[in-house]
């Protein structure tokens, strides 16, 4: 055989496949760009700087929650209590900030407590699922009921307002740029730093083949607990964004967001079975959900049909996400 035959395209991975391997979030990015274009076609106003900033600050909480979910999915687990953790941190920081007077010190103190609370919820989930070896779906559903109970204890009815300092900062501007851009930049930096840690690689190793990871000497139980802790941490960050957006506490606010966070992870192109995930994809997945919702609105869909069209559109992009993700992994 002449050397030229070795150089045929079939002998090395195709260009598209190589791209997908290096940038697994590409399909999700393409969907986001397409949705942005559609939004612009139906209502040019929806692409204005102001609308996009608004979209970002509304869906930043879901972006954070989707990223939280991605870390447990990496290890082949799932967290159905992420939304309940978000609710709990939301009511806890609102109550603490009010109790401590609503000044800058109170806000920072409450946020530190919120992060610790989120971590604690995550560690509880990790212990229940990884150390006690309960099935993740049902066990985290049980902890979500427990966390919701605690949230209801902290704040029985929704409506306590967050201090003005908090939501004015989140919704306001800093040095001429919307504050939410700084949140996004900080998130990007955090994700970049995390992606260079050993933990993320370990999570993926556990998700890819738990037995193999164990046999190579990984402390599988500890790694999974750390994954849940990371999920709790990002759920707390999601709660901060949500509190900044809604400016109040609501003990049940997150319950509807859990399943959306799972959907966003799949939309982003990650495999629910674990071992192959992309946090950037999850970010785009959450944006996809936001853009679908706004598109349905801007298309002038009659209000009673909006939920149905949203549901159908999300089901279709979910299917597309699964198929594209599988193609990338194949």
């Amino acid at each position, binding site marked *: 055989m002449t050397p030229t035959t070795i150089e045929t395209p079939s002998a090395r991975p195709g260009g598209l496949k190589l791209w997908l391997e290096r940038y697994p979030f590409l399909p999700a990015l393409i969907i986001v760009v397409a949705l942005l274009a559609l939004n612009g076609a139906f209502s040019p106003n929806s692409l204005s700087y102001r609308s996009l900033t608004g979209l970002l600050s509304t869906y930043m909480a879901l972006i954070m929650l989707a990223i939280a979910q991605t870390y447990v999915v990496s290890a082949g687990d799932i967290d159905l209590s992420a939304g309940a953790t978000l609710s709990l941190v939301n009511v806890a920081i609102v109550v603490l900030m009010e109790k401590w007077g609503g000044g800058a010190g109170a806000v920072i103190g409450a946020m530190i407590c919120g992060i610790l609370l989120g971590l604690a919820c995550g560690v509880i989930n990790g212990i229940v699922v990884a150390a006690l070896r309960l099935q993740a779906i049902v066990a985290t*559903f049980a902890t979500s009921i427990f966390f919701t*109970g605690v949230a209801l204890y902290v704040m029985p009815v929704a409506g306590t307002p967050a201090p003005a300092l908090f939501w004015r900062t989140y919704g306001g501007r800093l040095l001429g740029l919307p504050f939410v851009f700084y949140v996004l930049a900080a998130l990007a930096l955090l994700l970049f730093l995390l992606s260079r840690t050993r933990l993320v690689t370990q999570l993926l190793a556990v998700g890819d083949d738990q037995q193999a990871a164990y046999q190579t000497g990984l402390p599988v139980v500890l790694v999974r607990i750390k994954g849940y802790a990371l999920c709790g941490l990002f759920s707390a960050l999601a709660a901060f964004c949500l509190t900044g957006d809604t400016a109040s506490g609501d003990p049940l606010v997150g319950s509807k967001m859990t399943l959306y966070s799972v959907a966003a992870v799949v939309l982003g192109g990650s495999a629910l079975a674990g071992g192959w995930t992309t946090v950037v994809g999850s970010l785009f997945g959450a944006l996809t959900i936001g853009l679908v919702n706004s598109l349905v609105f801007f298309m002038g869909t009659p209000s009673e049909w909006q939920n149905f069209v949203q*549901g159908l559109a999300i089901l279709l992009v979910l299917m597309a996400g699964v198929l594209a993700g599988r193609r990338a992994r194949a």
Partner: protein
Amino acid sequence: MNAVLSFLKKPLVIALILIVALLYLGENLSPGFASADQILRLLIVASLLGIVAAGQNVVILGGREGIDLSVGGVVSLSAIIAGNVMNGADGGIVPAILACLAAGAFFGLLNGLGVTLLRIPPLVMTLGMLGVLQGLLVVIRNGIPSGRAAPGLSAFVTQPLALGIPGIIWLWIAIGLFMAFMLTRTVFGHRIYAIGSNEHAAYMAGVPVRRMRIGLFMISGMFAAIAGLCLLGYSGSSFANVGEQYMLSSIIAVVFGGTSLAGGKGGYTGTMAGALLLVILQGILTTVNIDESGRQMVFGATLLLLMLFYGRGKAMRA
């Protein structure tokens, strides 16, 4: 001694012991909790959950991470369809049953096609379907009134039918017998376990895996539809998202019944006990005098505690 121990470790036995213990506890906390009337009422509520869990059970038994998150949506949809088809008239019961079964089978078929032909993981497919169903509910509820249950249906669910026991409990018993027969005595039942424990081996042995799996999702949809119909009879009229509560509790009932979420192992008798256990636990929590937050905390913690009794995963071994 070992025989006794392994008997006590059977999920069905655990569930039955826990049921008796909980009834005893409930009777002590509020006298009259374990009276015949109360137990009948708990059984009615449990039968609604148990019927949904029957469908959930076969999907889970079929393996490949089988799960149906759309059952809650189908229950709500079926309650609304039934209410409108019968609209308070006994003559409409049969058409309502047929319409509900058709709707349940249709959405089950869609789930099954997505899972088999497109190979979408069941969790994702049924989650997406749940969103579609919830949207559909909004559309339907905007266009038409919610409808009323026929007196005959309400009587079937709430009034004694024979031996002082309401018809729905007889229906649940019949479903239990049917499921036991189907799972242990028919080729179809054996094939469910076959594809659940080793899909590839089943395929090589000539089991029509795809058609089987589509069938399981259709069965799940139809059981959810029957439950929606009965739920309408229980409450008289349907309200928004009435079925939502069944989504995860049906899965928990299956787990409490000793069926592994990994598939291929378990049965329906345990699930019946699991559904009853769950309903009794909720019943106790509503009778004791604590506020909602405490109730949820106790409920969540108790669920975790009970799960410890059931099939925990294997420890990692080199």
